[in-house]
């Protein structure tokens, strides 16, 4: 029970940090699940996060994986509900009040101001993730290639991510990395 309660508090807190997308919550996600609660190791977190990018639907369904590791099916459900309920209720309420807020004079300031902070949080997430995943020049090349490909083309991100995994297996075969 204690663990389900911990899952609920951690993921409802992380929910509120997902400004500009799920990645903004990654630094705190790592801090809490790896360093504070020891639910997963840092490599395990990276693995679940990356697998989550391959799964359909919202790109943070990996919270279900962490929930399942901690408390099986109930853990997965608690983590998901906790992660989506706080922001969900907020969105529901604001959606109904929107006609009043759309012309609020502080709205553009908040949107632009929080927007740049959100980009900063995504960058911090990428740096923290890079420290764990880009362990040598070969993995750096994989990350750079995926970045350039997705930046320059409209290809579905799932393909280069799967190919990255296959290259990882190839490197294992040849004893690299």
């Amino acid at each position, binding site marked *: 029970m204690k663990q389900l309660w911990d899952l609920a508090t951690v993921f409802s807190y992380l929910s509120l940090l*997902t400004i*500009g*997308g799920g*990645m903004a*919550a990654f*630094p705190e996600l790592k801090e809490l699940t790896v360093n504070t609660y020891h639910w997963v190791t840092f*490599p*395990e977190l*990276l*693995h*679940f996060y*990356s*697998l989550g*990018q391959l*799964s*359909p*639907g*919202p*790109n943070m*369904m990996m919270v*279900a*994986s*962490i929930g*399942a590791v901690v408390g099986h099916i109930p853990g*997965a459900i608690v983590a998901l509900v906790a992660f*989506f309920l706080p*922001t*969900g209720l907020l*969105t529901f309420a*604001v*959606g*109904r009040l929107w006609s009043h807020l759309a012309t609020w004079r502080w709205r*553009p300031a*908040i949107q*632009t*101001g929080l927007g*740049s902070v959100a*980009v*900063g*949080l*995504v*960058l*911090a997430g*990428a*740096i923290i*993730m890079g420290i764990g*995943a880009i*362990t040598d020049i070969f993995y750096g090349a*994989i*990350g750079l290639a*995926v*970045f350039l490909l*997705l930046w320059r083309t409209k290809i579905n*991100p799932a393909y280069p*991510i799967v190919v990255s*995994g296959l290259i*990882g*297996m190839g490197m*294992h075969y040849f004893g690299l*990395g």
Partner: protein
Amino acid sequence: MSDAPQVAAPPSLGKLFWVFLVMGATSLGGGVVAYLRTGLVVRQRWLDDLTFVELLSISQTLPGLNATNMSILVGDRLRGGMGALVATLGMCLPGAILMTGAAFAYGIGGDDPWSKAFLHGIAAGAVGLILVVMVQLGAKVLKTPADYLFVAATAAAVAFFKVSVPIALLVAGTVAIWWHRPRDKTPR
């Protein structure tokens, strides 16, 4: 604005759930917004483009993921509170089941060196994906040189100086919002 009915009648709750379930199961590789527009505006004609963009801008302003925020807003517009609930459930269910299954599969085969090598590879690839998301998000929201400073300061504080995210959000957010504060051109 024309009088011709461009938008179809609101669906039943069952139909709403089914359409979001299909989108939740097929929107592979992120980019869920494109799937939502195709499904809701083009195929079902439940929304027009103007409403879609309006709801999207609410989704992007608020915390939460775009995919779930859009499900809530669209569901509420079409079928009220229950609509928001079933749309969100449909959107999340396929990915949730897959990622729960992934956790159990990982417990069985995660220590295998081949799966480790595969997962290490996709983690490296995912770093590239996140950087692209950051560049695309940045292109939309970064407007003045000061904004780039806010980005760099937030990222450095969190990634290198271990400043906790709520504190970074509070400090950088307050400064950035104040920087963009509404300035009246005509004094009242």
